[in-house]
């Protein structure tokens, strides 16, 4: 029989319960996870393909539903707030689409680890991989709707200046939050199964208290308080560059601060409880 086995990659396991080296092993999990980004991306694409299997429009349904929501909400709230559409719709487009991305991710990330149970219980893989998979999956979905933004901008002749490039670090901040959030929420929701409904409710509330339908200027003097809303800060790092010539400094500082806190918290809990995850799912 001509059978040539393929050499498999190196493996070395060393676990000492008395000296768990939490931080070191969490870091190597992160490193391994990121080095397998191709697998995470392939799994994310597979998820999308399976979700829209047999559908004619497929993921374009996301763009379509965003568009319908934009038109509907734009006409109604533009009239309610008495703002003309050329002013209101670009704001709504950026806010709503970025928000849908964030909200969709948060709800999805609750199942980061529980939905990967079959793989976690059978294969030794970095947990970071599952967080990347969810982040990629939601980024791919969002990409379909993000395309609407330039179209709306063109229709209303809203051409941003060079400061629009600042939206790139803004998007990057969102992505960092998503990897951290995938691990953090994924772990919390795997351990405590009551958290996902709580999260879903919190996300719904956040939609109304964040300046998505309404413009933050409407708050007048109370606007400084918005810095306490992490969603406002994150939205502003994308919306500011695209619509308002950069966005307020306070929002940027707040966004960086919240991202830092989020990453440290996620990193700490991940390092501390990583070894328990296999028992939680």
């Amino acid at each position, binding site marked *: 029989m001509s059978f040539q086995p393929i050499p498999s990659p*190196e493996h*070395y*396991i060393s676990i000492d*319960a008395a000296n768990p080296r939490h931080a070191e092993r969490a870091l190597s999990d992160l490193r391994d996870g990121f080095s397998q980004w191709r697998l995470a991306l392939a799994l994310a694409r597979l998820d999308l393909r399976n979700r829209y299997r047999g559908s004619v429009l497929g993921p374009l349904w996301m763009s379509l539903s965003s568009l319908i929501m934009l038109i509907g909400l734009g006409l109604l709230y533009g009239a309610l707030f008495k703002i003309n559409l050329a002013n209101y719709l670009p704001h709504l487009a950026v806010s709503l689409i970025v928000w849908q991305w964030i909200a969709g991710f948060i709800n999805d990330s609750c199942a980061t680890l529980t939905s990967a149970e079959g793989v976690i219980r*059978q294969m030794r893989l970095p947990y970071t991989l599952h967080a990347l998979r969810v982040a990629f999956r939601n980024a791919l979905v969002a990409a379909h709707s993000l395309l609407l933004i330039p179209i709306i901008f063109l229709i209303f002749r809203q051409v941003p200046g060079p400061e629009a490039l600042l939206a790139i670090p803004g998007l990057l901040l969102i992505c960092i939050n998503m990897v951290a959030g995938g691990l953090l929420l994924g772990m919390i929701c795997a351990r405590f199964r009551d958290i996902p409904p709580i999260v879903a409710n919190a996300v719904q509330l956040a939609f109304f208290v964040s300046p998505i339908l309404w413009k933050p200027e409407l708050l007048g003097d109370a606007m400084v308080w918005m810095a306490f809303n992490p969603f406002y800060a994150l939205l502003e790092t994308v919306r500011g560059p695209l619509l308002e010539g950069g966005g307020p400094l306070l929002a940027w500082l707040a966004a960086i601060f919240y991202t830092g806190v989020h990453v440290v918290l996620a990193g700490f809990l991940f390092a501390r409880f990583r070894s328990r995850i*296999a028992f939680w799912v």
Partner: protein
Amino acid sequence: MARICAEGLRIEFPLYHFGARSMKKRLLGAASRRVKADAQNRVVISALSDLSFTIESGERVALVGHNGAGKSTLLCTLAGIDEPVGGRLTVEGEIGSLIDPAAGMDILSTGRENIRLRALYRGLNAEQTAALEAEAGAFSGLGEFLDVPIHGYSAGMSIRLAFALATAVQPQILLMDEWFSAGDADFMAKAEVRLEYLIKASEILVIATHDMDVVKRWCNRVIRLEAGRIVGDG
């Protein structure tokens, strides 16, 4: 050189999501040895306790014992999936696990897509992926079915693909849960030949089994587990 070394290994499964309060009363009321409360007062199943052993290169180890003795848990621990709560474990060498050959397959993808997916899971490069595709495709004998989603496979066909994928990689340490048996007689014969090759080329074999013929034929050491402890070794 492959080597497995365990010292005072202890594995406990916490029981979450089962309404621990009432269960605790019920389970802990009876004088039980294996279901107990840990330091944080959670109900845990003590799956393995105080295991110490060293497996050197060249050893063919059979794990035997009744259902629930901890054989599969020990395999999962050696594979690096379950982490011990106590003791020390060192595993040196590439691990190949035949614990569940079908793990990580996507039933809505075709056989070929699943082969590529597995290559990604294993971190193979383009050349190795092509080799795996040719190898597993030929061995599974699926022919034109390779481009059909495995959702549409018969049970035997998906097992053939899973087996072909799981055994295409030569590990130093081979972990098996029960001797593989599935497929028709032709495929069984082919699979036996390949398993034999794989086992001979590996440095360490650890197999959990109830089948004494398998033990006699393949193993040179038997570890007998009972209620999570080693009661016999040799």
